[in-house]
């Protein structure tokens, strides 16, 4: 699976994207976030406040129960802040 990180999630993890083999036990977005959080201090810092973490799979916003597969592009980012006041 290809993982993309944006904004402060990217800064805390320290890279903008990576390819990871999906562990067998990781079947949905919630499990992916739990697993990633244990991958190092940067990951832990980025994902600690789960309330502020959003996920999109292949460009579609999804929730924690969304099932993931090996060839998914999974983007992890903070709540969006585009547009204008």
């Amino acid at each position: 699976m290809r993982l993309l990180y944006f904004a402060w999630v990217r800064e805390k993890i320290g890279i903008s994207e990576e390819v990871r083999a999906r562990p067998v036990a990781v079947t949905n977005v919630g499990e992916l976030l739990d697993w990633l959080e244990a991958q190092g201090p940067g990951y832990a810092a980025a994902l600690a406040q789960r309330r502020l973490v959003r996920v999109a799979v292949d460009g579609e916003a999804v929730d924690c129960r969304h099932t993931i597969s090996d060839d998914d592009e999974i983007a992890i980012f903070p709540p969006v802040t585009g547009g204008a006041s």
Partner: protein
Amino acid sequence: MIRIQHEDFDASRETAALIGGRTDVGALVTFSGLVRDVAIELEHYPAMAQRLLEQLEADACRRWPLKACLIVHRIGRLEPGARIVLVATAASHRRDAFDAAQFLMDDLKTRAPFWKREFHAAGPRWVDAAEKDVDAARRWR
């Protein structure tokens, strides 16, 4: 039409191109969002941003009888006073054009994958999403 770009835009030129030659447009609403107070940098998720803005435009065209619609969103570093975003809606009647433009801005703010970082004297800071923006978007549901 959707465009995501580094370059500045000229609202009057954009709207002239949008409705040029048409005689069935009675109302044209344009909204320009500007950088307020401090410089910003806008990051985005290109593939998703393009697709999401296209979805929003399609949603607006389903809900209101629009003759034409345009969203231009800038990315990169922008100084105070710079234009960030342009939404233009054209319809036969003003209510449809006003409502569609507001819907597009409200939904764009809460759904389109753009992130703003502000450059304060104390250092750069990512902008937090505001509850009031979520409330503003919710009223169109």
